[in-house]
């Protein structure tokens, strides 16, 4: 039974890691390889992983290519290209190898680390250093680029065009291309993979990271004010927005801390300008008080949380889905808020746009749970469809007779007056208040406003976007975010084994909506909840809000290791046949 679910070579994709010490330029080589593969019609992605050093140390670009879109890493790697061996064994868990794997390394740098030999990987020598040294002004990473491009069957001119387009110093072009050619030539001595099927991607595809996608989604949603405090792995989202915002009439302000960034965003939004900030777990922890203010004062705001290993400083540059608990319940008081989880790199765009739309329409804070995997991974995606979302912020007209900012309306949404509008001035208040916005500690006012704030979220129309529901079967896999890719792949593999399972990838985490969720799980006899954290946070959330049908199991493990398709596949098949 285990046999069917063990790691096996995926004939439809090729996985390849390029590793080396920090200065070796492996990320540059990986980025160029990805772009060249994309231009040659392939799909692919590049995950970044590195040691804790600011500069230097060890780094690896983890790549997977396919004629079809890829959403996640495979179980294993076909090739590990080691420009040098510095601390490479630290990546042994993140770069699983087996008897089908080939490690291409520089024999002058020493022997292949024991961990890789034990996995059964074969060694193929390539003199990266000496080859680069023989070409004045070139670098070993360009040799690695030539080699890997050849293994993937990428035409020489495509690689050359990418190198030319990427180099900042134009006098480096000739030696770089010579090194690429030397790498290509060296590939002849190395066993090639079976050729991938003919590339299927045409024009109109995009190459971007989840952080860039989320930034663009924010702009599409109408965000024109962003307050920023740098934090790994959300910084690139803010850095993408910094030059983009002024182009569309917006502004980004660097704040003194996360307490300031969330409060600046609230101030701007109070002023009528849709606002966002992006952070990671430590920053989200600092922001929770002000997010509660957004709940009570009913100020739209979006916080993109690019999750990383926690708690505390945790593992800043590596992925983990461990902020589900703080996002769903990390505010004091009864504080309904929106929590959304994009489930692919491309979906970071749509879901961030949707989050802005919902925050604006419902005058509430929305937390978007992205993660380091999405945020810092660059992928080739089909151009996402434009999302048209009717609605937006309900504003009060000038001179509204008897204006009540927090009027207890049927929908729970009440018109928000924008400063500058005549005759409707009010004070947005974190103190509990009556309908006029006057502070009140009376039980009736408190109850009424609590009801209003809950009702507007619970009765809103969210449509089909709340989850991706796929397949048939009595076994339902419920997951979210970046665990969705490997789960989807695992379900497809199980189907090939004749075992059918359903996928429920939840995009709208909060508010919980039992009727809709129950309908999606109708007929389920087994529910497997897959997530990347230690404490089964998502399962705990689901148990708190829903009556999960049948037998329920958790599949969870913490970062930084990704959820791998084979593990989920094995669990699905074993459980189905038990």
């Amino acid at each position, binding site marked *: 039974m285990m046999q069917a679910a063990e790691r096996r070579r995926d004939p439809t994709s090729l996985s390849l890691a390029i590793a080396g010490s920090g200065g070796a330029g492996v990320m540059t080589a990986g980025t160029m390889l990805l772009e060249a593969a994309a231009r040659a019609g392939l799909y692919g992605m590049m995950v970044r992983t590195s040691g804790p050093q600011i500069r230097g140390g060890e780094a690896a670009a983890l790549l997977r290519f396919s004629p079809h879109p890829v959403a996640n890493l495979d179980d294993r790697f076909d090739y590990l290209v080691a420009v040098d061996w510095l601390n490479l064994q630290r990546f042994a868990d993140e770069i699983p190898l087996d008897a089908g794997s080939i490690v291409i390394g520089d024999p002058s740098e020493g022997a292949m680390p024991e961990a890789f030999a034990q996995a059964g990987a074969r060694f193929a020598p390539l003199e990266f250093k000496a080859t680069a040294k023989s070409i004045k002004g070139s670098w070993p990473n360009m040799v690695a680029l030539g080699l890997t491009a050849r293994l993937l069957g990428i035409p020489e001119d495509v690689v050359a065009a990418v190198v030319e387009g990427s180099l900042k110093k134009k006098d480096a072009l000739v030696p770089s291309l010579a090194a690429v050619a030397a790498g290509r030539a060296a590939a002849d001595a190395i066993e090639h993979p079976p050729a991938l099927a003919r590339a299927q991607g045409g024009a109109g595809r995009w*190459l971007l990271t989840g952080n860039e996608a989320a930034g663009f989604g924010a702009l599409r949603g109408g965000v*024109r004010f962003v307050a920023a405090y740098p934090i790994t792995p959300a910084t690139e989202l803010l850095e993408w927005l910094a030059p983009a915002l002024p*182009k569309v009439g917006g502004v980004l302000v660097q704040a003194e801390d996360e307490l300031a960034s969330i*409060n600046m965003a609230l*101030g701007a939004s109070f*002023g009528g300008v849709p606002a966002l900030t992006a952070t990671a777990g430590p920053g989200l922890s600092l922001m929770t008080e*002000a997010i509660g203010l957004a709940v009570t004062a009913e100020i739209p705001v979006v916080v993109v949380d690019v999750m990383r290993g926690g708690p505390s400083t945790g593992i800043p540059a590596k992925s983990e889905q461990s902020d589900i608990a703080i996002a769903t319940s990390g505010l004091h008081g009864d504080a309904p808020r929106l929590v959304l989880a994009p489930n692919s790199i491309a979906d970071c765009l749509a879901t961030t746009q949707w989050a802005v739309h919902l925050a604006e329409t419902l005058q509430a804070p929305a937390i978007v749970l992205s993660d380091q995997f999405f945020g810092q991974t660059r992928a080739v995606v089909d151009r996402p469809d434009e999302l048209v979302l009717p609605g937006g912020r309900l504003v009060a007209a000038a001179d509204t007779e008897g204006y009540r900012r927090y009027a207890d309306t049927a929908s729970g949404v009440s018109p928000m007056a924008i400063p500058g509008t005549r005759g409707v*001035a009010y004070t947005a208040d*974190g103190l509990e208040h009556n309908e006029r916005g006057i502070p009140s500690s009376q039980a009736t006012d408190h109850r009424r406003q609590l009801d209003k704030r809950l009702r507007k979220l619970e009765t809103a129309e969210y449509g089909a976007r709340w989850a991706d529901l796929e397949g048939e079967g009595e076994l339902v896999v419920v997951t979210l975010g970046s665990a969705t890719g490997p789960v989807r792949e695992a379900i497809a593999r199980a189907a090939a084994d004749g075992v059918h399972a359903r996928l429920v990838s939840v995009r709208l985490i909060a508010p919980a909506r039992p009727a809709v969720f129950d309908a999606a799980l109708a007929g389920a006899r087994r529910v497997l909840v897959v997530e990347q954290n230690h404490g089964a946070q998502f399962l705990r959330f689901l148990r708190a809000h829903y009556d999960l049908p049948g037998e329920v199991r958790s599949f969870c493990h913490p970062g930084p290791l990704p959820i791998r398709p084979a593990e989920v596949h094995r669990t699905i098949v074993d459980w189905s046949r038990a």
Partner: protein
Amino acid sequence: MSSPPETVMQRVTAADFKSDYKPIWCPGCGDFTVLSSITKALAALELEPRNVAVVSGIGCSSRMPAYTTAFGFHGVHGRALAAATGLKIARPDLTVLVTGGDGDGYSIGGNHFMHACRRNVDMTYIVMDNHVYGMTKGQPSPTTEPDWDSKLSPGGTGLKVFHPLVVALAAGANYIARAFSGDPNGTAEILAQAIRHPGFSFVEILSPCVTFRPEQREWRNIVRPAPVEPTDDPVAATRRILTDDGFNLGVLYRGDRAPYAPPIGHPTHAVADLEKGFAL
């Protein structure tokens, strides 16, 4: 955001800026007269309430926004300057005042105070300093004397007193003044100047807490106009403030640093243009 000119332009009065919501302050609190001074200053500047925003954090004096007819933002403790910064940058057309006390501004909000001074956004920060946390019923704040006895810090904190004007000057505030709540007209005049002055204006108002610091009733006999004229020279201002005992009133410093006002609302591209950066 401006509206068409009105046919009959009535001159606004201080009363137009006062809401009908009754303050929660204790009888005799200095903040009552500060409220009057604020409304007088806004009227003197012929502003319309709808184009003014009053932003605050938490504390007795932070209740100010709702007592005016301007747009108000009563946020979380210590973060008023951050919220006001976002508001003013997003809406440069508004006149933004920030009101609060010594605990809100100098203790929990101390970091934002420093950075608001150096950021120099065009807004006016009014701190009603009474050297005590009043709302929580009498604990020492950063401006409380080190030997002031209280339940929370029996025998006194023993800590050096925070000097807000020194910090404001060092951090780069563009206008620095001290006023006294017992002089509502003088305070109104300083506030009007501060609001008019471009950049970050900081006005420290000595505003007695008659409940927890009844001895502050004596302040009216201690305060005095500063013996020297305002200066635009930070070195001169520094020399003067180093010998300040906390009771000199008037303008200490008027700088000419350009306010931080990044452009907003001037798009050069459509959002769709930006996707070219992703296209293969």
